[in-house]
């Protein structure tokens, strides 16, 4: 009797659902979070002073492309993780690709650099701040993506939290890249990545609590 009533109530509330609603909501959450983080970056830290010159260098675009690739690939994996029984292996491989590529580029750049320059392209002048800024600016998108994932159905909560954190970390690093004027590829590979992984760690820590349904 009672279950019939529940079914009746649920059925009465049947509305059409867009096929890619999971992706739409998640992307929207990350974009809104990005807006907040970018505004915070530009107001608080200001755009990088050498922006006009930097846009003509490959390093500038790599620093934009790497976090963006992390964010998009992790988002895609996350959207599979919040769908029960959805295969994730192929997307997990894609999500690891940006990291492997930046490590390879960083290693090559480091190896080719003259010995005197190596410390500069590795440590830069802000290695001790950069990961923390990335983590900080990943918080708005992390809130967004967590709220999105909560409406869906992640069954592996720690993993889903980790991947939510990675995508938010990518977005946060992308926002921070508008302000950071480091030019070394090894710097990017090490410290941006560390910040992104910190955001992932935060997600893994919180996932089992905040993603339960």
């Amino acid at each position, binding site marked *: 009797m009672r279950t019939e009533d*529940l079914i009746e109530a*649920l059925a009465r509330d049947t509305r059409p659902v867009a096929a890619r609603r999971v992706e739409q909501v998640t992307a929207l959450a990350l974009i809104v979070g990005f807006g907040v983080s970018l505004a915070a970056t530009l107001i608080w830290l200001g755009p990088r002073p050498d922006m006009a010159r930097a846009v003509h260098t490959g390093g500038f675009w790599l620093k934009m492309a790497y976090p963006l690739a992390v964010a998009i690939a992790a988002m895609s994996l996350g959207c599979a993780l919040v769908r029960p029984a959805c295969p994730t292996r192929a997307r997990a491989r894609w999500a690891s690709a940006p990291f492997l590529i930046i490590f390879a580029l960083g290693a090559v750049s480091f190896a080719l650099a003259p010995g005197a320059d190596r410390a500069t392209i590795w440590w830069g002048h802000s290695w001790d701040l950069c990961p923390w800024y990335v983590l900080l600016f990943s918080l708005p998108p992390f809130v967004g993506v967590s709220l999105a994932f909560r409406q869906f*159905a992640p069954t592996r909560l720690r993993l889903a939290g980790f991947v939510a954190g990675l995508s938010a970390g990518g977005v946060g690093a992308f926002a921070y890249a508008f302000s950071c004027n480091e030019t070394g590829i090894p710097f990017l590979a090490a410290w941006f990545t560390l910040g992104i992984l910190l955001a992932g760690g935060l997600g893994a820590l919180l996932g089992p609590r905040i993603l339960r349904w």
Partner: protein
Amino acid sequence: MPVSEERLRQLMLQGLAGEAGAQRELLTELARLFAAYFRRRLADQAGDVDDLVQEVLIAVHTRRATYDTAQPFTAWVYAIARYKLIDHARRSRVRRHVSLDDAGDLFSEDESEAATARSDLERLMDALPAGQRNAIRATKMDGLSVAEASTRLGMSESAVKVSVHRGLKALTARLRGARSGGDRED
């Protein structure tokens, strides 16, 4: 005769397109399926079967956007049921771990010997928000079903479930806090 993947998937797709009739039929079939599924797995807690079935139905309905239409439907729906079953097991382990019998021990020093476990529990529950207190009283002490409790309290069924769940969690935390405090005094 068991319903086929194909039939359920068809109903699901129609439900996703907004057809209430298909959704009703789907949920009815699933209720039958999962009553059997949970009964097999919860032999010692038969009373929880209905609640779990309803939780799964609510999840299937409210989270149906997570069904990827390129994937098998039964895999999706059983993954939801399995998640709810595991969640249930985890919750009932917590509940058993801090059973209500302990409440009497914890508070016996503060209360007269004659105080019953029930009044200890009432005291603990007074600290909860009214909604959670009423929901727990109705479902766990007065023995109402979730549907009956929702009528009595004028809350939706899912709100009753959420309140009971949160309230029990808060009670458990409170009991655990009281116990570790007691240990330190020993």
